[in-house]
């Protein structure tokens, strides 16, 4: 193929997935834009945002890829009702990794900001936010990834090409949305206690 043909094919194949994740990213941005009060109330929260979003993509993208591979190899059936221990183990590992990485991000952000002498919220506040956000977004993303990969596979789509765009799009939106829920919850509990 000539350079032009390669370029046109690559462009056509990528545009739909890029467009879908663009919509998700803008939605996530609107929620983040509406979170300015919370970002001011919890100094250091903005520093956590890229790490939390990337964790969602890394962990649940890998979960989706694992499920897709297991489907291709015939190790699991594409039905939630017939889910076996293999699927439960993969989901449990993903949730565990996601929450651990979120807690690690909160601890590191707190340490680095304290060392730099920047204004930062208490460690307990950041850990609480990371835990609630990691747990809630993990549950929803697992459900989305499993459902989309199974449904896509049953309808004859290659789950490998579905996972990437689905995880980046829903990961951004739910990642930020549950971050907002987590901040409000932790600030509310902190205010009551």
């Amino acid at each position, binding site marked *: 193929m*000539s350079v032009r043909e390669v370029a046109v094919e690559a462009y056509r194949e*990528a*545009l739909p997935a890029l467009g879908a994740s663009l919509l998700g990213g803008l939605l996530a*941005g609107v929620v983040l834009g509406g979170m300015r009060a919370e970002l001011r109330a919890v100094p250091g929260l903005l520093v956590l945002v890229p790490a939390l979003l990337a964790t969602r993509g*890394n962990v649940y993208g890998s979960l989706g890829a694992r499920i897709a591979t297991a489907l291709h190899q015939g190790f699991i059936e594409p039905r939630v009702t017939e889910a076996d221990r293999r699927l439960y183990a993969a989901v449990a590992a993903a949730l565990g990794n996601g929450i651990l990485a979120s807690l690690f991000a909160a601890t590191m952000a707190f340490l680095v900001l304290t060392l730099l002498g920047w204004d930062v919220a208490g460690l307990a506040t950041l850990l609480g936010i990371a835990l609630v956000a990691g747990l809630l977004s993990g549950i929803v993303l697992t459900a989305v990834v499993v459902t989309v990969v199974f449904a896509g596979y049953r309808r004859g789509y290659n789950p490998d090409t579905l996972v990437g765009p689905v995880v980046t799009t829903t990961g951004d939106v739910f990642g930020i949305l549950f971050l907002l829920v987590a901040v409000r919850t932790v600030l509310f509990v902190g205010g009551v206690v």
Partner: protein
Amino acid sequence: MLPVLLALTLVEIGSGLVLGGFEGSLLQYPSLLVLVPVTIGTAGNLGSILAARLSTSFHLGTLSFSPRDDELLGNALATVALAVSVFPVIGVGAWLLTTLLGETQLAVSTVLLVSLTSGICLAVLAVVVTLVATYAAYRFELDPDDVVLPVVTNTCDVLGVLVLFGAVQVFV
């Protein structure tokens, strides 16, 4: 999985620090804050799409690391073309959404300029990072599918924040 995940998390904290460094401008102009997730995400996507395609060509044996290779040039060109078509939509979209919420303070041209400039820089950087990572995987005989994708996605995340920071410094 966990050690790699924690290492990538550290890298992302680095990009978080850059965001923290211009938190003032971001909180003052909500249009810019709206740009953050979508710019990071699109940069990562441009890199990962290119990495996946190069990795497939590499496995099929149709890729050679020559500056005159058709696959290489065509894919690099497509990445820049995708950025040029997508980032104006991102800029205008971010401005429009902030305006609908009645919070905008920046002119649409400023947001468009920030977004398009960041996009073109990021496309070029994504091409460079992906080529270097794919070539390194080839030299060290690693499977590009395992190594290149996470490295490229997370590097592009960090570069996304850095380039956005630079564009905001220049244009806002």
